[in-house]
């Protein structure tokens, strides 16, 4: 099988790689480029653990073919911290004990980031809706919802 070139921006850095045709973005990110923050859970589009942000939209990297991302701007949880300082969402997840086994956390944080990018002060219902495609089997969701609301408040205070 011939390799195909893929080139995109990952968390602000240019990446170029040769992959087998039909390789999913999840596989390319984890096994080719070495960004293991998106997780492979169900590979069926059900669990949301592989969620990444492509050109500003939340997508499932397990159902996205890497070849279709040429020229795209891709964001993952591993690119959130700046100069060793955690992103407010990461800080809030830690403080609220919103992560237990941690497998769903990168996907949850990406889903929450898209929400906060568009809605500075979301309601609880908006948070629940934004996270509705992400499954967590540990926390019961409540700490995650609280963490997102806390991060939104922290963002608002910083902006004020």
């Amino acid at each position: 099988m011939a390799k195909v070139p893929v080139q995109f921006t990952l968390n602000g850095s240019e990446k170029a790689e040769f992959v087998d045709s039909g390789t999913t973005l999840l596989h390319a990110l984890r096994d080719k480029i070495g960004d293991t923050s998106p997780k492979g859970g169900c590979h069926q589009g059900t669990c949301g653990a592989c969620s990444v942000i492509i050109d500003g939209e939340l997508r499932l990297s397990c159902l996205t073919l890497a070849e279709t991302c040429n020229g795209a701007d891709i964001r993952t949880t591993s690119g959130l911290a700046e100069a060793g300082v955690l992103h407010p969402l990461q800080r809030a997840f830690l403080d609220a004990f919103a992560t237990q086994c941690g497998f769903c956390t990168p996907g949850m944080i990406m889903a929450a980031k898209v929400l906060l990018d568009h809605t500075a002060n979301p309601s609880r219902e908006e948070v629940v809706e934004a996270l509705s495609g992400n499954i967590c089997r540990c926390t019961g969701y409540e700490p995650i919802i609280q963490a997102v609301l806390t991060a939104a408040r922290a963002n608002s205070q910083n902006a004020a």
Partner: protein
Amino acid sequence: MTLALQTFSTVKDANMALQAAGTRYLGGGTLVVRAANEGDVSVSSLVRVTEPSLSAIAVSGGETRLGASVTMAAIARHPELAALAPAARAVGGPAIRNMATVGGNLFAPAPYGDFTVAMLALDAIVVTEDGQVPIQTFLAGRDASRAIVTGITFVLPRAESFRFLKVARVKPKGVSVLSIATLLQRAADGTVTSARIALGCMADRPMRARAAERALLGCRLTAEEIAPALAVAGEGTSPITDPIASAWYRNEVLPVHLGRLLLA
């Protein structure tokens, strides 16, 4: 997994490539990449089309055309498509809605395909490279369809005449127990003069509840008057049994939810 992906700039060229055995059309990926991930070896190569018209939404008067690559998220946020937003939002979570397309939804097997239930109630026309076909005809023959769907056209319903309900056990997002879309025209005294009722999960693909439609004619939307329609709502159904619900359960609750939707 190795899948040969071919990208075309026009539907015409892609249509030729799609004729090869083992080739499937790649829309948003939520069905076909999922199938490949699941180990479906019948999928060996994929074709996709980047033609911009496939992602266009056109609303002129009531006439609406959705390109086959229009996503559920694009419909849900479009100001002129507010009547359809509940059906578009019924599909998946936010990430799925950013990927799942109108064209793909036409092929989604039960328990998926909630948006197509709404399209069936609206008597939409499916546009393919081979021409235009009524959605009911298209759905009946979709397993053998080899022509790329380019769009879907329909008359946008007035908000008060169109209703949509998805029943799921998990809130706010869950797989359908069933879904129902109704398009009712009513006279000034409230009696139903025409009725179209489409059901999801009550067969392997969206279907019409024709007996209930007939029974609703001339009725006002009161519990007493719709009772005969609810009594025949399950006529002709052949629901799926899956981990969400059994066929028996789906048949049992269909009249309950149809009644609630009609009386809402």
